């Protein structure tokens, strides 16, 4: 069961996230429901492995929007970084950034 405290402990900018939800705590927490079982971080990893940078960009871009709106700072920051690299179709080693995203995603999943 996700709570404001657990989100805070995770590193989310709960204050900002709550404000965006007009300080409706229940609503804010409910938004996390649809993240349960979300496989898109894995999809991103797969697309990168296939070197399908177009697909990877689309996924990263979508994730960036969600994590940003939920103020999930620990996930938002690396996803934003990878989105910009992918937007420019940068030929680089995405491994370290991807590892960071995976790690943060696992932490988040634990909260859900």
């Amino acid at each position: 069961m996700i709570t404001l405290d657990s989100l805070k402990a995770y590193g989310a900018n709960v204050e900002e996230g709550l404000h965006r939800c007009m300080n409706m705590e229940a609503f804010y927490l409910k938004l996390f429901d649809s993240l349960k079982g979300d496989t898109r971080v894995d999809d991103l990893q797969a697309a990168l492995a296939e070197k399908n940078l177009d697909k990877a960009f689309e996924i990263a871009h979508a994730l960036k929007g969600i994590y940003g709106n939920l103020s999930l700072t620990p996930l938002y920051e690396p996803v934003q970084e990878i989105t910009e690299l992918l937007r420019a179709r940068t030929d680089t080693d995405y491994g370290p950034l991807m590892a960071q995203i995976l790690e943060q995603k696992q932490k988040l999943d634990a909260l859900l």
Partner: protein
Amino acid sequence: MQEIFRHGQGLRRKVLVVDDELINRQLLGMIVGQEHDVIYAENGREALRQIRKHQETLSLVLLDLLMPEMDGYEVLRTMQADAELRRIPIIVLTSEKDAEVESLHLGASDFIPKPYDMPEVIMARIDRSIELAEDKMTIREAEDDPLTGLYNKDFFLHYARQHDRYEPETPMDAIVLNVNRFHLINELYGRSLGDGLLRTMAEKIHLLLNGTSGLACRSDSDTFYLYLPHREDYESTLMSSLAAIDGTLGHAKITIRAGVYPNADKSVDLEQRFDRANLACSRLRGNYLTACAYYDTRLHDQELYAERLIGDVDTALNEKQFKVFYQPKYRIQGDRPVLASAEALIRWFHPVHGMISPGVFIPLFEENGLISRLDHYVWQEAAAQIRRWKDQYGLTIPVSVNVSRVDIFDPNLEQELREIMLVNRLSPEEYLLEITESAYTDHSSQIIDTVARLREMGFRVEMDDFGSGYSSLNMLTSLPIDALKLDMGFIRNIAKTEKDFRMVELMLDIARFLSVPVIAEGVETEEQYQLLKGAGCDIIQGYYFSKPLPPEEFNRLIEKELSERNS
């Protein structure tokens, strides 16, 4: 109520949230849902379906750009291309600067960045976009003439003034167009043809305005106003395209007239500029061709001046600004020229404009009947003057006065002249009436009757300006007149051209045939005098003897005459 609409509060609008991410839709929906009804779409295709379904009531679209199936750009393009959907404002949801610019180009009214701003900011931007769009639509609906799609007059004038403010240096033309006998076209061929004609005219006007900063409206019924940067090619553009309308609408004969005030003076009130174009246009009344007339400042100044003079007549008569001058007429066939009579000539000493030539105000007053009042004034003054000379010198200097066309049709003419004689203790023989030749030819039977009665009363009648009208020889023989006064135009050149002198000789022959004396006026030189005397002319009037004089100066001529008679 107005206030509520203005701020977009109180009345819940319908807002479509388009985003492929559930969380984003939920979040935005929650924020927007505080004040408005929200509907959702998760891709572009679904969005367009919803937009079309709710197009009458939809107030705003919040549109994500990157979506599966159909992206936001495609939605923007589709809506921009549709006249009905174009009115719905769109706020784009994006996190990219480049996308912001592109979506604004594609018709988005605003954007909301991702991650979303604070709800207050989002709500403010939403409300502002709705308000702007609704205001714009209210103005659109109010500013258009529904029939032609051009502006209505009020908005036209407003925008034209705005144009003057922002582009004061651009020379502009004010144009008025209207359809000859439009009411008859409506009546004969039906309103729908009339409306079709007005719409066709509006299309031609649109073509002319295209690519210019010009604007146009239908001012009323069949009248259009155009205000556009000065150009010289109206004949080959506007007029030829308007002329081409004739024949395209069945049997109806369509002709359109245009009045152009080119390089309209911007210091003149805007509506007055169109009045001037209208004035030029109205000069084409009765001209049943598609045609264009230009307003001319000089002409307008003359009209204004004339109008002022007309307005001043009452005061001028009351204040005796009109003075009667007298020009002597001399009988020349004896040993010496003998002062025979005088002609009363009016002068206007205007307190503002100074002395105004009768050549300016008499034609003006002839047009509107005021001449009659002026004539009466001169009749009385002249009669009183004859009386004064008679009292002072014991002799009668007959004075000739002008009788205008309108006087001849005045049923009281004889009665009034009789009274003037009575008041001044004169007999009609001492008074001369001048009637212009063209009056005879215009209304011969009426004139002949009137002149005959006046002569029966004892008045002597001189035919003025003889030779300038078109009297037939046949008519001349039946005319009851006592003298022929040659038109000045013939005298001017008798010393220079043989032909003119021959003409004068001919007229003298006619006078001899009619047994009436001939008066030559406008005689200025010794040469003219000698020629006329040699040809047998009886009486001479002109600067050769004297210019028209005020009575007190004329006295000296009488005194000289008296002293010559006595010596």
